[in-house]
């Protein structure tokens, strides 16, 4: 067992546990966008930041990728964390203002203004779909291309790819797409299948991704 300090409490977790897992186990809420319990952590969305180390020498790390270490001091809701997280959410809101997930997140964390220029990106490049495809489907049909600001998610050579098994997992797992219909099972989501028939990624990827034909998500919506 590893003993460490979580928000001033002495806690113990198994070796190899991430700080995020530990915090959630102890009932502390940490927001995430790129995390999924079934997939490898990636640390891309930066929302799960926590402060570690002695005050004065502390730094922020993503709790989803950081292992619990003996004697570590972890603060999940320090002023520094909260302030930084708010700016990050504000930046998300400016980048993908139409995503319901991000709107919800902003409301939950009291982000009331957006001082950055608004863009209308659909994808936040969290990489969940890629990890789903690689790790769950062993598909490797989609991946990141380019780097820096040019980074995108697509299929090889932006073309329909034979390795894709049309499982629809990438659309299912996408956090930015959740503004669209979740199907009738999803109690909290509003079924807007009639308004928004195709997930935004379809427009975005064009021929490369229109394998969902007919689209799983939309079909489910119609059935409902």
């Amino acid at each position, binding site marked *: 067992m590893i003993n460490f300090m979580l928000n001033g409490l002495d806690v113990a977790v*198994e*070796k*190899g*546990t*991430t700080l995020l*897992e530990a915090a959630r186990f102890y009932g502390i809420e940490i927001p995430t966008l790129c995390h999924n*319990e079934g*997939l*490898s*952590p*990636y640390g891309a969305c930066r929302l799960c930041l926590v402060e570690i180390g002695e005050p004065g020498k502390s730094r922020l790390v993503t709790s989803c*990728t950081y*292992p619990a270490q003996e004697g570590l001091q972890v603060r999940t809701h320090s002023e520094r964390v909260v302030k930084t997280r708010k700016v990050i959410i504000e930046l998300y809101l400016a980048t993908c203002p139409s995503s319901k997930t991000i709107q919800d997140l902003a409301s939950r964390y009291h982000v009331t203004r957006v001082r950055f220029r608004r863009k209308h990106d659909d994808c936040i490049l969290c990489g969940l779909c890629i*990890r789903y495809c*690689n*790790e769950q489907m062993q598909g*490797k*049909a*989609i*991946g*990141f*291309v*380019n*780097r820096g600001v040019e980074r995108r998610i697509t*299929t*090889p*050579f932006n073309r329909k*790819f034979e*390795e894709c098994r049309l499982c629809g997992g990438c659309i299912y797992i996408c956090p930015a797409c959740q503004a669209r219909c979740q199907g009738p099972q999803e109690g909290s989501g509003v079924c807007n299948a009639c308004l928004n028939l195709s997930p935004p990624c379809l427009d975005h990827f064009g021929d490369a991704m229109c394998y969902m034909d007919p689209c799983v998500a939309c079909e489910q919506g119609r059935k409902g």
Partner: protein
Amino acid sequence: MALLEKQMQVDQENFTTRNGQSLVALLQEVQEQYNYLPEEVLRELACARGLSLMEMYSVATFYKSFSLQPRGRHKIVTCTGTACHVRGSEKVTEEVSRMLGVKPGGTSEDGEYSLESVNCLGACALAPLVVVDGEYHGNMTAARVAALFREQLKKMKGQSAESFDKVIEEKAIAGCSCARLLAGEKN
């Protein structure tokens, strides 16, 4: 436990071919041979060497030195390192780009010239730097670019010089001043 281990596994995955060559090295070989990475070759290699095409495509687009488009026969590189920047490399790059009618990272339509801007060639004492087919030219200024190309093209094959003249001529038709500029150079 599981999650971190999983991450390490993903992080540790080697992109290597069956005979142990790294994917980056393999792509470098392909690029050396074809001067770019042709799609068919990559597809074939993915099959033959047991690599994922997606991984190949990710790596090929991540690194700057790989090109998925054919490159020109003559490679012109402008350095945009800090030392070059403070000595005015931005204007030099712009002028080269205008002269050749090629944007940085692009290739002229006739496939003769490729223009690349590189973040530092490590010859900062000569800033700003322009490299034409591997030959370094230091202390460049925007005004000296035209003279440099004239001189360089004399050294290159006759055909290329003609093609350069053709580029200039076409530009003259398009109303660009390069031809006039070069005519001025000659006078």
